[in-house]
C-alpha cells in the first residue's frame, strides 16, 4: 500500500525496549551526529539545512535555512540566542509531546547542533507547564547530557561552550507566538511585539538576535546533518521536503500520531487507510487539516489547484477533498493550511454550530488582550455563537459573526487575529444552511449535545 509510514523523527518512538535515558539513546547511535556536526563546522551545517529546504514545523512553514541566514554569527557583536518552542498548544496537535516524553535526547542533539551552527552560547527550552512530567524529563535529559560532556564548557573538546535551560510557561496559548514567547521569557506578560522587525533574528531575546524553532524542526536538523541536505530534500516533494508528523484526532477509528514524507499521501488516505475511517460507521462531514486555526474543509468540496505538470507548465486541475495532498502548498491552495499538522475530523452527526462555538470559546479564552479588535471581537464571537447554540440565535447572527470576524483579521499585531477569525469565516460560509436551520428551530434547539461541546 502506498501509505507506509516513513519514521525519521519518530524512529524510536514507541519501539519496545526503547527508553528515554541517555544510555539507551547512545546505544542507538545517539550524539554520534553531534560529533559529526562539530567536525564539519557551523557554516557547513547551515549550508546543509539550507539545501534541505526544511520548512518550520510549528505552523507557519517558514524555511528554516532562511530564518537562520538572517543572522551571521561572524558579524554580529551581540550574543545570539536560540529558543526551542515547546509550547505545543494548538488544538489538535500532540506531536512534540511524543518527542519530549519518549525521546528527549533526540531533541537535545538537534538543539545543540542548531546552537553550534549559529554560534549560540545560551539557549532556552520554552515548554508549556501543562507538560507536568515533560519539563522534569527535559531537566533530567539536560543533566545527563551535561554529565556526558555534550553540554557546558568545551563540548567534546571542540572549544565550543553551550548552556541550555528549561523555562516553563504558565498556560497561555499566546506564548507559542515567537515574540510573545520572548516577552514571556523576559519575565513579562506574553504580549506579542509590534512588527517590524518581522523576525527576532533582528531584535529578539534581550534585544539580541534570536532564533526560535519548533521541537520537530530542531529534531529534523539532526537528521539533515546525518544524511546531508540534498538527500533530505529527496524525501517528500519539491518545496515540501522531509517528513511530517501528523496528529489525527476526532471521529476516526484510530486517532494518533503518524509520520509520512510531506505530501506522500492524501487526506482521504490518511483518514480511511491510516486511521481506519470514520468511527461508528458514520460519514465524513468536515476536517480541520492543520490545527484549530486552519480553515475548515467540507466533505464533498472540490478545489481548483494550480500545479506544475510533467512538462513543467502550470496547469489547473480539480481536486476533491479526499484527494488533497497533505503538504504545505496544496493545503494552502485549497484555502486552508498545513499548520502544525493537527488534523481534526468531524463526522456527519456533529453539529457545526457547536463545534465552532467550542473553537471560538478557545480563542476568547486565549486572546492576550493587547489589540482591541481581537480582545473585544473574540468575546463577541463566543457570545453570539453561544446564544445560537442554546437556542436564542437571531436571524442576522451569521452575518454579524462574519462581520466581527472580518474586522479582527488583519487588524492585530500578531497572527492570533487571523487564527481566531479563520474558523468563523470558513464555518459560516461553508455550513451556512446549518446555522440558519439552527436559528430557525430556536427555542426547540436541542441542548442534548451541547453538554459535550460547550461549557
Amino acid at each position: 500500500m502506498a501509505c507506509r509510514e516513513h519514521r525519521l523523527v519518530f524512529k524510536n518512538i514507541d519501539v519496545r525496549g526503547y527508553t528515554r535515558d541517555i544510555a539507551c539513546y547512545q546505544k542507538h547511535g545517539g550524539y554520534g551526529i553531534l560529533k559529526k556536526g562539530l567536525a564539519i563546522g557551523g557554516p557547513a551545517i547551515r549550508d546543509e539545512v539550507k539545501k534541505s529546504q526544511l520548512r518550520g514545523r510549528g505552523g507557519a512553514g517558514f524555511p528554516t535555512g532562511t530564518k537562520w541566514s538572517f543572522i551571521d554569527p561572524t558579524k554580529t557583536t551581540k550574543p545570539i540566542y536560540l529558543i526551542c518552542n515547546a509550547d505545543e498548544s494548538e488544538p489538535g496537535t500532540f506531536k512534540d509531546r511524543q518527542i519530549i516524553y519518549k525521546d528527549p535526547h533526540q531533541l537535545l542533539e538537534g538543539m545543540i547542533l542548531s546552537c553550534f551552527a549559529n554560534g549560540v552560547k545560551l539557549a532556552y527550552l520554552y515548554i508549556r507547564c501543562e507538560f507536568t512530567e515533560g519539563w522534569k524529563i527535559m531537566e533530567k535529559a539536560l543533566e545527563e547530557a551535561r554529565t556526558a560532556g555534550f553540554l557546558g564548557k568545551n563540548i567534546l573538546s571542540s572549544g565550543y561552550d553551550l548552556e541550555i535551560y528549561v523555562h516553563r510557561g504558565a498556560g497561555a496559548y499566546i506564548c507559542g507566538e515567537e515574540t510573545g514567547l520572548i516577552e514571556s521569557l523576559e519575565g513579562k506578560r506574553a504580549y506579542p511585539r509590534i512588527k517590524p522587525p518581522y523576525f527576532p533574528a533582528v531584535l529578539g531575546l534581550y534585544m539580541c538576535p534570536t532564533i526560535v524553532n519548533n521541537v520537530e524542526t530542531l529534531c529534523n536538523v539532526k537528521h539533515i546533518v546525518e544524511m546531508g541536505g540534498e538527500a533530505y530534500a529527496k524525501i517528500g516533494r519539491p518545496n515540501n521536503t522531509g517528513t511530517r508528523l501528523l496528529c489525527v484526532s476526532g471521529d476516526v477509528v484510530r486517532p494518533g500520531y503518524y509520520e509520512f514524507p510531506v505530501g506522500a499521501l492524501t487526506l482521504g488516505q490518511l483518514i480511511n487507510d491510516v486511521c481506519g475511517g470514520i468511527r461508528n460507521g458514520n460519514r465524513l462531514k468536515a476536517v480541520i487539516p492543520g490545527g484549530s486555526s486552519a480553515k475548515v474543509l467540507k466533505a464533498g468540496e472540490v478545489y481548483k489547484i494550480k500545479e506544475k505538470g510533467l512538462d513543467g507548465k502550470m496547469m489547473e486541475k480539480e481536486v476533491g477533498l479526499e484527494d488533497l495532498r497533505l503538504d504545505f502548498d496544496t493545503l494552502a491552495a485549497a484555502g486552508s493550511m498545513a499548520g502544525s499538522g493537527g488534523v481534526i475530523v468531524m463526522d456527519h452527526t456533529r453539529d457545526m454550530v457547536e463545534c465552532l462555538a467550542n473553537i471560538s470559546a478557545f480563542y476568547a479564552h486565549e486572546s492576550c488582550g493587547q489589540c482591541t479588535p481581537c480582545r473585544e471581537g473574540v468575546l463577541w464571537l463566543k457570545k453570539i455563537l453561544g446564544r445560537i447554540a442554546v437556542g436564542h440565535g437571531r436571524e442576522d447572527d451569521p452575518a454579524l459573526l462574519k462581520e466581527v470576524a472580518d474586522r479582527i483579521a488583519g487588524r492585530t499585531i500578531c497572527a492570533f487575529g487571523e487564527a481566531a477569525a479563520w474558523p468563523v469565516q470558513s464555518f459560516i460560509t461553508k455550513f451556512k444552511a446549518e446555522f440558519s436551520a439552527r436559528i430557525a428551530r430556536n427555542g426547540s434547539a436541542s441542548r442534548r449535545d451541547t453538554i459535550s461541546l460547550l461549557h
Partner: protein
Amino acid sequence: MSTTLEVGTENCAGPETGEITPALEKQATELIARYPVSARSAVMPLLHLWQETFGYIGPRGVEWIAAKLSLQEIQVLELVTFYPWFRQRPYGKFHFRVCRTLPCALGGAGKTFAALQKLMRLKPGTHEGAMVSADGRFSLEYSECLASCGTAPVVLCNDHFHEKVDEKKATELVGGCS
C-alpha cells in the same frame, strides 16, 4: 482496576503561611542563576516554585518574589493575573483539570466533567475559575487544549496526566484519591 492517586509534588491547597526554608531559598537562587542576562526572567520560575510549595500565590508570594528580583510588586502580580496556570486562592487537595477544547469535546469531555462534578459534589461557584468542594478535598475546572488530542478526553489531576477518561475511569480516579 483500582488506581491510587497521590497528591504528587504539586501543592494545590495551601496554606500560603508555611515557612520559607533555606532549601526554598537555595532553589530560588539556582533558578535565578539560569538567567545571567536579566533576573526579571526568573519571575515565572519563581511563581511556579512558590505556587507548588504554598499552593497559591497571595500577597506574601508576590512580595517575596519582587524583593528577590528587585522588581515592583505589580511586575510580579501582572503575571499572576495574566497566566491562567497561576492562582490567587487555594484549590482542593486534588485539583482536576479537564480539557474542553474541540478534540476532547468530540471525545466526550463534557460527560467526564459532569461525572467528576457529581462525584465531587461540586456546585458552580460564584466566581471565575475552579469549583472547590466544601471540605477542600477536591477542585475542578475546565482547561484549554492539553496537547493529547489522540487520547481524548484527557484530565490532569495535580501533576498526574490521565488519558481516555470516560465516566467509568473518572469514577475510578476520584475513588482512588487518598
